[in-house]
């Protein structure tokens, strides 16, 4: 790196991400002097206005944190609050929640792959441009996205901020006819999902091996959605209520967002934490054996292997999860019968409860304290993108150095954006994101 130059690269508004963020990078004498993923999504203070609200209002409130993954917020909150109220909704609700979540994974993953990420790998500015040259692939993606939304509508009334859930289960049981129609559509889409995995594996993805810790839920009997223990790729295996013993968010002065770090030896013991990865690649790295055989067989034909240290395999991991979500939806729909009790009744009582589910972008952790009347006293919500924040910055440093800092500003900017988008950051989850103005002397 003999070239001596100082350049500042700014991407003032990142496109094809959810929410508003920017990247700032300063290179001095061939080395990265400063790098910031700036988040200027204003804080909306959800945790504060949950206080004083009844437990029956929480699901309608937390859905509004994110239009793309409202189900994840509703599910983490449901589990946390039900644990406080001592409620076990039973097998029907459990299965319907898995189906509901499959709908959200389908919708969110298909949206990200086709509208946000794929244009990067094929060389277009937007999916709309890409559609003119690759109509079959883009339309297949839009169909999978639409099917996910239809699952959400069938159970939730609408796909953005669904209204069909309540603490204890669902407000209604869909008719046999509507579920039979869904089953038919899922069966028809199944070959498309398998083909999507194979198509993405043929794309020229950057080869970018990195060292990182993967963190995800793990369940002994199934691929994780709503339930499980928290595992990390270094061997950590804890209950979700122990999350704060090992993972902490901090308000770092050089950054515009709260960063979460992992403290392998425990928060109380260690001074410095490490970045970690949540989301589809982390889930697959820790749960590959839990996938149905058909999903693993299809993947085997591509030559792509998991666990993987190539961050760009995230986009394939997303497609693999689409394939899984469709198979899981089919399994649940084949066994469907309406229930007379789509929700169990609840009685308020005081206590503290935790919920942690696998949002499309990774673990979404909630903690609630309720009073005796069932009202929220304190709420803590840790969204996946907040947890990936430190990892994204670490990745940017390493990938841009690997790309070569002598490259043109445009190349560096493009690659930087590609790296960020690969995480599917959902910046709108603004419970914890903020614009931070740093005063320096």
């Amino acid at each position, binding site marked *: 790196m003999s070239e001596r130059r100082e350049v500042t690269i700014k991407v003032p508004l990142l496109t094809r991400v959810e929410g508003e963020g920017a990247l700032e990078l300063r290179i001095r004498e061939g080395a990265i002097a400063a790098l910031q993923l700036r988040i200027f999504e204003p804080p909306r203070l959800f945790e504060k206005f949950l206080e004083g609200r009844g437990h029956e209002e929480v699901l309608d409130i937390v859905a509004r944190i994110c239009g793309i993954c409202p189900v994840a917020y509703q599910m983490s909150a449901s589990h946390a609050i039900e644990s406080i109220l001592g409620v076990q909704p039973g097998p029907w609700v459990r299965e319907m929640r898995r189906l509901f979540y499959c709908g959200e994974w389908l919708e969110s993953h298909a949206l990200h792959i086709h509208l946000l990420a794929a244009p990067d790998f094929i060389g277009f500015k937007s999916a709309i441009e890409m559609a003119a040259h690759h109509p079959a692939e883009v339309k297949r993606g839009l169909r999978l996205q639409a099917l996910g939304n239809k699952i959400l509508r069938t159970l939730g*009334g609408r796909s953005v901020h669904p209204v069909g859930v309540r603490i204890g289960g669902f407000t*209604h049981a869909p008719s046999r006819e509507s579920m039979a129609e869904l089953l038919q559509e899922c069966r028809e889409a199944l070959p498309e999902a398998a083909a999507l995995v194979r198509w993405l594996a043929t794309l020229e993805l950057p080869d970018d091996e990195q060292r990182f810790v993967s963190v995800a839920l793990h369940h002994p009997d199934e691929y994780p959605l709503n339930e499980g223990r928290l595992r990390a790729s270094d061997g950590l295996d804890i209950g979700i209520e122990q999350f704060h013993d090992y993972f902490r968010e901090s308000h770092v002065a050089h950054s515009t967002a709260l960063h979460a770090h992992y403290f392998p030896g425990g928060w109380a013991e260690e001074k410095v934490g490490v970045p970690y990865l949540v989301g589809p690649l982390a889930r697959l790295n820790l749960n590959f054996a839990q996938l149905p055989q058909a999903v693993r067989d299809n993947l085997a034909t591509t030559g792509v292997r998991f666990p993987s240290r190539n961050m760009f395999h995230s986009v394939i991991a997303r497609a693999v999860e689409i394939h899984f979500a469709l198979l899981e939806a089919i399994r649940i729909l084949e066994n469907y019968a309406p229930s007379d009790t789509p929700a169990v009744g609840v009685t308020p009582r005081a206590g503290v409860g935790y919920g942690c589910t696998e949002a499309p972008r990774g673990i979404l952790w909630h903690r609630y304290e309720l009073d005796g009347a069932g009202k929220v006293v304190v709420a803590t919500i840790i969204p996946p993108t907040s947890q990936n924040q430190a990892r994204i910055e670490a990745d940017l440093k390493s990938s841009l150095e690997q790309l070569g800092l002598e490259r043109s500003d445009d190349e560096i900017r493009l690659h930087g954006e590609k790296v960020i988008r690969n995480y599917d950051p959902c910046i709108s989850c603004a419970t914890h994101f*903020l*614009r931070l103005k740093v005063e320096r002397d």
Partner: protein
Amino acid sequence: MKPRVAVHKFSSCDGCQLAFINAGEALLQLATLVDIVHFAEAGYADEEAVVDIAFVEGSISTPQELERIRTIRANSKTLITIGACATSGGIQALRNMHDTQQWVEGVYAQPEVIALLADSTPISERVKVDFELWGCPVNATQLFAVVRSLLSGVTPLLEQETVCQECKRAQTVCVMVSRGEPCLGPVTRGGCGALCPAVGRDCYACFGAAPQANTAALAEQFAAQGLAPEAIARRFLFINSHSEPFHSEGKKWQGEGK
């Protein structure tokens, strides 16, 4: 020349612009009818472009957002708000009834570095708005109806009836009459298709107040059914707490409870 269109985002969850993003082939078709010049999530970034139609999602909650919306207004022939945040301040306007600074201090370690306006406000409190689409979130039917009207040179026809009327037409069993649920359908603007009663629950007014809503009578009915004053207040002070008549009705019952 095709009309130039922008989709802007302010303080929001991204859920309303999803009405475009989730539209599937209709989105591809839209792109043939108009020139999309700014729509960050879809890959277009030209925020200061002069446009024929600007769709605005989100409320104004920071000093920077206030500057941005003024520029956008100056650059846009027709400005349309999409959704509860842009049209009424949104759920985050709940902070307007509290000491925001104190809340920020409760959440963040370095509250002094956070620039927030005292209130989260609808776009129309800051600049002139041509059309307002209510809903948390808006849906594709509302959005594409407006686009079609404007492309045809027709003034868009906005929803005037209540959720209650939509619900009756759908012949859904009334959740208030049959089960005593505190349904806000009689005072809430239609457009959602009376979704909540259709799935067996009470409407919570995410589409805002209907024109000439009689909130006082409905609140009295809730009280007669045994709902506590403080719970009645929370019904009105929710997704659209910053807009009238919900704001005053909610505050009235909040006072009763103390």
